[in-house]
């Protein structure tokens, strides 16, 4: 098990979480508070550039220069452990730290630009951060604290059929750092087990992309939604009630477009979509509107979760 911190954490704000599923941020804070994780959010931290980066608009120097600024802010407030709610923020930031440490030419070029333009306070020095020791996803923190989850569980969700969708940019980009590995991703299955539930485990297309493909969803929707349908059909074959996510972009693809893909496939899809932090927060008794952020969901959470029964102590 790799080293995972539970303090000095900058909870890295995500554009997609902020504007599409703000309940993911509220749920993460709710669960972190229950588990005693020491974190803060900074208004100075800005977007990782990921959506623009993977649409080929931002090049690496742009993304890594923005990264260097965010890394400096994290260090300046004494929170050098960046923890991401979005798989793309995670992949983008980890790659920038790797490149800034390994590629002297890139680091020196960005630092020279900062020096020449009155931004010397943002300079990044080699090994200011370490990719495996300072850059994490929320699931890493939760997994390291998994033994403490059980005692906070209020509701029994074990009657639901639950499956997990592990985002590609958590599992596949920096696979050497992925808890549970990349071949049979299961870190979320393990976390759900700590809530007293059993997932269906492996299913057809479990490793597959959500189909967003960044530009594909908007510029090439046939390709995008055909890929999503592979997985959505596999989920329906298993009669899944709740699909659990760790990335807001995957979450959008499944939750926002489930009705459209249902029409395209001529098949009724009924799963609801929760981020892992929302799932655990719900099991811990988080309010649907004040913590989970149910109003932001397209497939209503209460279309599946109708009654919550308390666990027998």
């Amino acid at each position, binding site marked *: 098990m790799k080293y995972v911190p539970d303090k000095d954490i900058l909870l890295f704000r995500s554009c997609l979480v902020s504007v599409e599923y703000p309940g993911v941020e509220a749920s993460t804070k709710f669960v972190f508070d229950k588990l005693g994780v020491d974190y803060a959010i900074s208004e100075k931290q800005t977007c*990782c550039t990921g959506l*623009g980066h993977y649409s080929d608009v931002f090049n690496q120097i742009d993304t890594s220069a923005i990264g260097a600024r965010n890394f400096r802010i994290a260090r300046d407030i004494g929170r050098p452990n960046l923890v991401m709610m979005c798989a793309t923020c995670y992949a983008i930031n980890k790659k920038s730290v790797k490149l800034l440490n390994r590629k002297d*030419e890139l680091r020196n070029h960005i630092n020279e630009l900062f020096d020449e333009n009155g931004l010397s306070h943002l300079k990044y020095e080699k090994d200011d951060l370490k990719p495996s020791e300072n850059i994490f996803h929320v699931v890493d923190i939760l997994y390291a604290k998994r033994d403490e989850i059980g005692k906070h569980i209020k509701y029994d969700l074990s009657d639901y059929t639950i499956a997990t969708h592990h985002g590609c940019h958590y599992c596949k980009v920096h696979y050497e750092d992925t808890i549970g590995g990349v071949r049979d991703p299961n870190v979320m299955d393990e976390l759900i087990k700590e809530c007293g539930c059993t997932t269906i485990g492996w299913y057809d297309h479990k490793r597959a992309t959500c189909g967003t*493909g960044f530009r594909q969803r908007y510029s090439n929707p046939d390709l995008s939604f055909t890929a999503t349908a592979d997985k959505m059909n596999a989920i329906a074959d298993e009669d899944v009630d709740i699909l659990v996510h760790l990335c807001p972009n995957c979450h959008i693809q499944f939750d926002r477009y489930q009705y459209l893909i249902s029409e395209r496939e001529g098949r009724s899809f009924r799963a609801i979509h929760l981020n892992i932090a929302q799932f655990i927060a719900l099991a811990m008794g988080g309010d649907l509107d004040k913590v989970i952020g149910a109003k932001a969901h397209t497939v209503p959470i209460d279309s599946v979760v109708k009654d919550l029964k308390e666990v027998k102590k």
Partner: protein
Amino acid sequence: MSIQQKINDSPIEFAVQIINDVKNSKDEGVLKCVQCGMCTSTCPAARHSDYNPREIIERVLDGDLSIIEDDSLWDCFYCYTCHSVCPAGNSVCEVNQILKQIAVYKGIGYDKLYEYLGFADSYFTAAIGAIPEIFFTDIDRDVPGWWDFRQHLDEIRSELELDPPLMPPKDVIEEVSKILTITGFKDKIERIRSAEEESK
């Protein structure tokens, strides 16, 4: 018929250009490709389109520069499945991204980027990477209730007691705008926008 021995034409220069690109994190991975096809066999774009990651590396190793003009490059999902399974330690996903940046540097693919310039605009105005407004009509058509939800976003965020607010302070936006100006990003965006708008 003569058989062209391409190795004599130094085709490796193209691969070396990719290896030396700042975005490459796989060292000399591209040269280690054995054309096993694991990438193509696991690729969602290959499953559903003409995209062929194995062939991309074959053409790079052949020194075939015309690949940067191949439209199928733009079908990659950037899911990194090829990157995660390659037994030789190569990453077609990264090579694809590098090829596209080479294309853009040469003025190719501006039409593919034009709709996504909204990501740049939102960074300069709000330091966030919001979904470009140009797609809102499609989203509103395809996602029931989405527009209504977005109209109530502030209320929902308020009920969740999220703090700090969505928009970063003015000095933060100015600082990141300055960074994206000195890296050459702003000039590139304006070049793409004016070229595309002149061609319409």
